[in-house]
């Protein structure tokens, strides 16, 4: 059985007028089929860049990546058929209605007009947007847009779903809806590759996770393993939280973060 996501020494270097940025500096990933894999890291760590390379949206500077067994640079179109992606910024067209957007998306993935209409209706029901389906997206709230974006990533029943910070900026109720959605999609056999800044989210949803910082993976394992490792190393009296693991892994301490906040306030 091929791995859902497999990356070897993935590197992304941006060269521009402002010099070069090594956003991703040699990332290895192995995600099993059926997992919810968490990809954590502070802002600017390289999460989105990695997701964009894995989903064929960005060229790979060096290294290789396969999604659902298909090399994303050698056979991008074949890879795209197995990939669903909802990026950090929702990608919607404000002038279309929700239904039009889903129908178009389904047709781009090869559905006939009637199949596309059925699939759109199904997804609208799934993300609870039936009432708003025939209104222009321009008027949707942030949560509605997020849900529609998620639905549009699902039109072709992808094998691997990439979600880049799907809950950032959502109110708690919408966040829970997205969590539920994610669990349900995963229960149907879809592998989920989730990036997030919320450790609680990762703790709740992810079977395994990797922490990236400065373009390099600094920790990898199940939440339980990572906590136990830190507990052993620090000889802590009880299991630390995933927050502690994260802070330890990224070289940030609570004190330093508190200090920074004070500086900003002062």
């Amino acid at each position, binding site marked *: 059985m091929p791995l859902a996501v497999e990356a070897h020494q993935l590197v992304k270097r941006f060269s521009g007028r402002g010099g070069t940025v090594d956003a991703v500096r040699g990332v290895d990933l192995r995600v099993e089929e059926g997992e919810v894999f968490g990809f954590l890291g502070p802002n600017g760590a390289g999460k989105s860049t990695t997701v964009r390379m894995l989903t064929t*949206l960005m060229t790979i500077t060096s290294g290789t990546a396969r999604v659902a067994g298909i090399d994303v640079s050698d056979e991008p179109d074949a890879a795209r058929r197995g990939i669903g*992606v909802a990026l950090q910024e929702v990608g919607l067209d404000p002038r279309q209605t929700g239904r039009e957007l889903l129908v178009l998306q389904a047709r781009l993935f090869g559905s006939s007009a009637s199949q596309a209409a059925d699939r759109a209706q199904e997804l609208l029901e799934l993300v609870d947007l039936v009432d708003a389906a025939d209104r222009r997206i321009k008027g949707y709230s942030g949560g509605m847009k997020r849900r529609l974006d998620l639905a549009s990533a699902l039109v072709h029943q992808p094998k691997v779903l990439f979600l880049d910070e799907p809950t950032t900026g959502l109110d708690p109720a919408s966040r829970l809806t997205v969590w539920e959605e994610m669990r349900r999609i995963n229960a149907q056999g879809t592998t989920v590759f989730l990036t997030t800044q919320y450790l609680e989210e990762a703790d709740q949803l992810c079977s395994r996770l990797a922490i990236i910082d400065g373009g390099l993976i600094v920790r990898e394992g199940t939440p339980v393993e990572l906590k136990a490792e830190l507990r052993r190393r620090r000889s802590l009296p009880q299991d630390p939280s995933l927050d502690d693991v994260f802070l330890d892994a990224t070289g940030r301490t609570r004190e330093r973060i508190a200090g920074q906040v004070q500086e900003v306030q002062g």
Partner: protein
Amino acid sequence: MTQYWVLGRRAIREVLRTPESLFPTVFIPIFFLVVNVGQAGRIFPAGATSFLKGQNYAAFQLPSALLLAASFGSAALYLVEDIEGGYFDKLRAAPVSRTAIVLGRLTAEAAKSVAISALIVLIALPFGISVASGILGFVLLLVLAAAWSVVYSGFVQLIALKSRSAAATQSGSLVFFPLLFLTPNFVPRDKLTHPMEIAATFNPVTYIMEALRSLILDDLDWTRIGRGFAVVAIAGVVMVALNVRAIRSYD
């Protein structure tokens, strides 16, 4: 083919949902037509000016108006909106031929151009302008103007893909504008001053303008028409190829 069709329909829907963007496209070329004819019409009286072939000066100016209208494409600005709004990434993440992504928008642009050119010609008819080459000529006129709109929009889309900014795209769309005026737009080419004549000869737009003009003033003059179509065909293929390449290497 299906992909091309659904993307084209989406782009047309987009244009129809922003009808206000069409107003300047119709108004400004007609404004220039009226002003130019108003200023120079007396120098070139209908009966006594051989290059007018019996029509009035407005007939001679009409191709400039059509080219101007066809150069007011909005495809690139919609594309920038797609890029800025993230929808472009959604399209790129789908297994869609990159050519269909480019052509979808450009086809909508061509359709829009056909409608607007037809409207402008219809507005011009009551002012004594006729299309000397008849119905077939009229159709060729619309197709040629539409083909030019594809070339122009293709060029501006290229700027949009490279700059990804609405401001840069807007100002970049003006870069091509001088080409519209380095043409025999007030008098035929052989009546231009020598430097202008040379410039116009090297300007591909000249041949499109002359083809359009021959369709209005002459009967079907296949040499002129053929040259005009050859120029837009080559320029169109180059623009589409450059667009497709830009999307393939888009990061």
